[in-house]
């Protein structure tokens, strides 16, 4: 009997990353622009989905995939706002992965969608590590969570393409140093597109919607759609 050390050096999430690439190719092919919303629980992902869907419903065909540990409440809210909605119950899992997104894409008519929003499970630690294949990731932070989050969850801030700072209507009531928060975010992700807004009052929503619309249109035009 021989004891031997075998060098491996293989990325552990490589299989997920390959599947994510398949998902991306499928979305590209169908001309569906896709966003992945990441956030702590309660930051306002579903509220932002509702605002985005109801304000863009006349211009874009929208679908929402909601990851939730057990309920379908969020998908019901997205559907009520006017989107085609699919719920993925992760059965306790704290993030979506590429396999789950693949299953959700299977039940959607991709040819009837311009913009797909994926609401990931509320959690700042794990989702950032599991690529789905979506085109852009959006981190939804919120004022009551505190201004130290970039410093505590650097992984979540590094990989995203846009940052929403929700619940700015609460700034007068909460100790939240916007300058300190944004300095941390900028250090981790220089030039990050940032949208301070309130889903409650509607303040700042226009800039966010403009970004979403421009990204979607740009994606479609570059593909001649």
């Amino acid at each position, binding site marked *: *009997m*021989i*004891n*031997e*050390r*075998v*060098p*491996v*050096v*293989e*990325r*552990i*999430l*490589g*299989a*997920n990353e390959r599947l994510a690439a398949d998902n991306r190719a499928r979305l590209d092919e169908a001309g569906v622009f896709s966003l992945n919303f990441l956030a702590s629980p309660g930051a306002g992902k579903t509220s932002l989905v509702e605002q985005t869907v109801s304000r863009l419903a006349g211009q874009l065909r929208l679908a929402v995939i*909601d990851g939730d540990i057990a309920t*379908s409440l969020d*998908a*019901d809210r*997205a*559907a009520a706002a006017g989107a085609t*909605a*699919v*719920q*993925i*119950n*992760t*059965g*306790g*899992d*704290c*993030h979506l*992965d590429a396999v*789950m997104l693949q*299953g*959700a894409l299977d*039940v959607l008519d991709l040819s009837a969608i311009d913009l797909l929003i994926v609401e990931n499970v509320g959690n700042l*630690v*794990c989702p950032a*590590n*599991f690529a789905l294949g979506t085109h852009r990731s959006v981190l939804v932070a919120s004022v009551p969570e505190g201004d130290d989050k*970039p*410093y505590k969850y*650097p*992984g979540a801030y*590094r990989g995203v393409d846009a940052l929403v700072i929700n619940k700015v209507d609460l700034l007068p009531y909460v100790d939240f140093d916007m300058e300190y928060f944004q*300095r*941390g975010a*900028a*250090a*981790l992700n*220089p030039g990050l597109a940032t949208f301070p807004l309130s889903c409650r009052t509607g303040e700042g929503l226009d800039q966010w919607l403009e970004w979403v619309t421009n990204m979607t249109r740009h994606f479609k035009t570059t593909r001649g759609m």
Partner: protein
Amino acid sequence: MSRSINRSTAIIMHELPVTESLLEIALRHGRDAGAEAVTDLHVVIGELSSIVDESVQFYWDMISEGTAAAGSRLHFRRIPGRLGCRTCGNTYSPREDLPCPACGGVDIEVLAGEEFYLEAIDITATGQTQREPA
């Protein structure tokens, strides 16, 4: 109307899909090396990737049962995070601060800490490996 999909398998924690992937990689490399059994796995985890902790051994024992890696031990090598300032060249730990502690610069790069891979496995083999001779 919203439609609903339930995962067929009941997943308990985020460690489980990670360990499934780990098992697949270890068994595949073990098989290629002609292993009778995989006894140890050496996993490298960067401080900034924060994916698994020691509790994963528990899931590992569960999912590796009945495979060539049954009863194997997981070893974790942690790599501390290291940031580099592109403005002044200073390197520092993300625990100190995020903007550069030397010059306050925010144009930084991650030099280390985002790793997450299986570095090596220890196996027992009968001596008839399927590998090409070196």
